[in-house]
């Protein structure tokens, strides 16, 4: 991907556009030039140019008019970029100790400079993490996105530390009530007690302890933290202003 310097379509811009398409497809949202522009922080006009350029390279196809999608090649390349992005985020958060809400921006710059060898060393240094600091999954070397296993909170055994991924509930009032208690996606829970014979759970969120009935717990999908270094746990409590947002796909990570 070498281009004349006069063009605004640098490698960085093209890679950002690929990453944007990949993330948008992952969310099942239409990948318009406008959406891509918001993520890559470029004008929609440049985004259209970039998408055309990527199409001529065979990385993007125009399925429906105005709705570009990634080709097989494009998806593989994009997964590699996302992998470097999220590994970089881990580096900034875990090793360099940058605040939670700043690592995304730093990684947006840093990801482009990583060679495959540096990437491999970084992954080893970080102990092959499965997720970025916000909880987003890191694609493996073959570009496969392994979503972290999530399961309902009522199936978790006592003494486990988990992270809320999603709350499956149609009623907003209930969602907001849980939110006012600090039980929202991204929150870290410590399952302290599980009452026997289908009784309620006792969970800790920050300094508060809550009793949750089984039927409530069944609506809270969580992810168990397997390779969480102690440092990260501490930092997760001091999350930035953007709050506890791992499932914050386009802007936040």
């Amino acid at each position, binding site marked *: 991907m070498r281009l004349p310097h006069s063009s605004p379509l640098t490698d960085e811009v093209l890679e950002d556009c690929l990453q944007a398409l990949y993330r948008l497809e992952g*969310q099942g949202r239409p990948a318009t030039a406008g959406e891509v522009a918001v993520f890559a922080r470029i004008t929609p006009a440049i985004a259209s140019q970039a998408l055309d350029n990527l199409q001529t390279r065979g990385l993007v196809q125009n399925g429906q008019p105005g709705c570009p999608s990634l080709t097989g090649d494009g998806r593989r390349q994009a997964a590699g970029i996302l992998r470097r992005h999220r590994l970089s985020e881990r580096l900034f958060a875990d090793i360099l100790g940058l605040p939670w809400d700043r690592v995304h921006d730093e990684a947006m710059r840093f990801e482009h400079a990583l060679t495959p060898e540096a990437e491999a060393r970084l992954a080893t240094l970080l102990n092959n993490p499965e997720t970025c600091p916000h909880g987003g999954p890191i694609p493996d070397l073959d570009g496969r996105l392994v979503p972290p296993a999530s399961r309902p909170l009522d199936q978790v055994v006592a003494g486990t530390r988990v992270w809320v991924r999603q709350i499956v509930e149609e009623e907003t*009032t209930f969602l907001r009530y849980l939110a006012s208690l*600090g039980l929202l996606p991204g929150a870290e829970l410590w399952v302290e007690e599980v*009452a026997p014979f289908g009784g309620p759970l006792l969970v800790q969120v*920050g300094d508060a302890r*809550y009793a949750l009935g089984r039927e409530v717990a069944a609506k809270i999908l969580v992810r168990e933290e397997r390779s969480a270094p102690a440092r990260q746990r501490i930092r997760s409590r001091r999350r930035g202003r953007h709050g506890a947002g791992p499932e914050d796909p386009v802007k936040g990570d």
Partner: protein
Amino acid sequence: MPTSCHGALRELRAEVQFSLALAGNPNVGKSSIFNRLTGMGVATANYPGKTVEVQLAETRFGDRTIGIIDLPGTYALGGISEDQWVARQALLDGRPDVVILVLDATNLARNLYLGLQILDLGVPMVVALNIVDQAKARGIQVHTERLAEILGSPVVPTVATRGLGLDRLMARAVESASRPAPLPPRLRYSVDVETAIAKLEGALASRADLPYDLSPRAVALLLLEGDPEVGAWLAGAEGADDLVRLRDEMVGVLRDLRGEDAGLLLARERHGLAGLIAAEVERREPRRSLVADRLWRLTTAPLTGLPLLGLVLAGIFGFLFYVGDWLSTGLSAVWTAVASPVIRWPFHALFGDGLLSRTLLWGFDAGINAMLAVGIPYVLTFYVLLALLEDTGYLNAVAFLTDQVMHKMGLHGRAVIPLVAGAGCSVPAIMGTRVLGSMRERVIASTLVVLTPCSARTAVILGAVSLTAGWKPALAIYAITFTLALLTGIGMHRLMPGRGTGLVMEMFPFRRPGALAILKKTWYRFRDFTVVATPIVLGGSIILGGLYETGLLWKLAVPLRPIMEGWLGIPAVAGLTLIVAILRKELALQLLITLAMVQYGPQASSLLSFMRPDQIVVYALVNTIYVPCVATIAILGRELGWRRAALISTFTVVLALLVGGAARGVLALFHA
């Protein structure tokens, strides 16, 4: 009695020079502060259709009269639950000069969420950093100056249960109120949210009709959050079409940018901000968990929780039995010896010894005596225990342990709180079912409350059965009633449409209860009980006296004969007392002895002279199960509607007759 909130708040503002509101999460010592600051002259007020109450009181500080509005303890302000709605509404209607935010120093991050909402509304705030002693014991130190700087509000460390720091708190509150409003602190959300706020704020700035005189920023935030009331204001406001469009656009932009509903996004950012502030101002020494905390966990641990619960229940029962009985006997004796002759004298002097005089004395002598014999000894004692269970936080452990059983009845653990209260008196217990979310849950819980033996029925079980037939049958009556309640609950859950809601409840660490708080809480509850019960006891006694003195009572006995003698196998005179006991349940026994003495002569002062122990058991069983007293029916009607009240009452009568007849049959087998 509760009065209307709007009116009460307006009155308070007119009367005092300066008013403040107390806000805070549940169980952070807010009521301790309120109790310390105020005397006994506390009024409660509620909004029409809402059951969560606001407490109002006046107090003096220095040379000023100060009005205090005690908001319900909530985690947030808003429209999502009744307590949150009432807290916000009273704050907006009451327009206090300053809000005292009570923070739990051991759980700053979660507690600060409410503080950020108050600051967002633009109300001046003074922070009471409470429970600093426990925070210290847990190795948590809070940098109060830094916290004050960040929040732009004075921060005073307090230990409310011991009254520490409250004078300084009041001084700061008065100071803040008399100063011009300080600049709002520079607390900002993320760029996306702030951009949306700024756009709406700009559009709102030119309007002069903002609800509750809120600042444009406050209204902008409420609009983004989807606050129903401010939304309704916008929908009705004149020339606000552009504003509506802008609001919808901003909500849409936030959803696109952050993939989340704006209300949830704001909640997330507030939590994030609260967490940041907490991390900035507190220093934690790694410390082993406190012995008290670890012991307290035993109350919810699977192996120790249930045995402890059994011990606590046995303790409550034993305490009620011994202390209640002792008080009951003592007070009755004092009344008979001292007050009764004094009261009888004017009636005799005015009306002679005729029908009227004797009828009135049923009420004013025997009726008040009964209040003293049941109301104070059992209800008051029970309320002291209930306040103790609540204030230590143990009641929440009970809710945790019983959640699963309650779940089988379509309820959740918190329903256990009114059920426990039902062992005192059904009336406040049915009012207490308001803590439950849906009408379905309230109907089930109220039915179970009705089936729970209250102190009046306990008095009959203890007085009639355990004295004549021994403690085993008395215990059996409890076991039968408990089983019936359980089966009724399961049945109702199966038959009624709809589903239960789940348990979400904070578990508090052990708190040493303050004597003052316990006494005040007991007093307010007892006062409410007395207000409801006294007219009914007096009126009921006088009606009963009239029926008895005119001899009409005996005529009522005739149609009852087949049911009482034929089906239940108890003397008709006993059946008669069961019917009139609807006026006052505990009276059943007393009346039985009185009537029996008329019918059988003086030797009938002992129940055993005219009833066998098995008949007494059936009698007490039916008395326990069938319709509660008129006061309970009245409160059922008021809380759940008259149709449901009638259904519940009829159900208990049928159940009592079925169980009574069955018990007679079973006991006859033993007898034979």
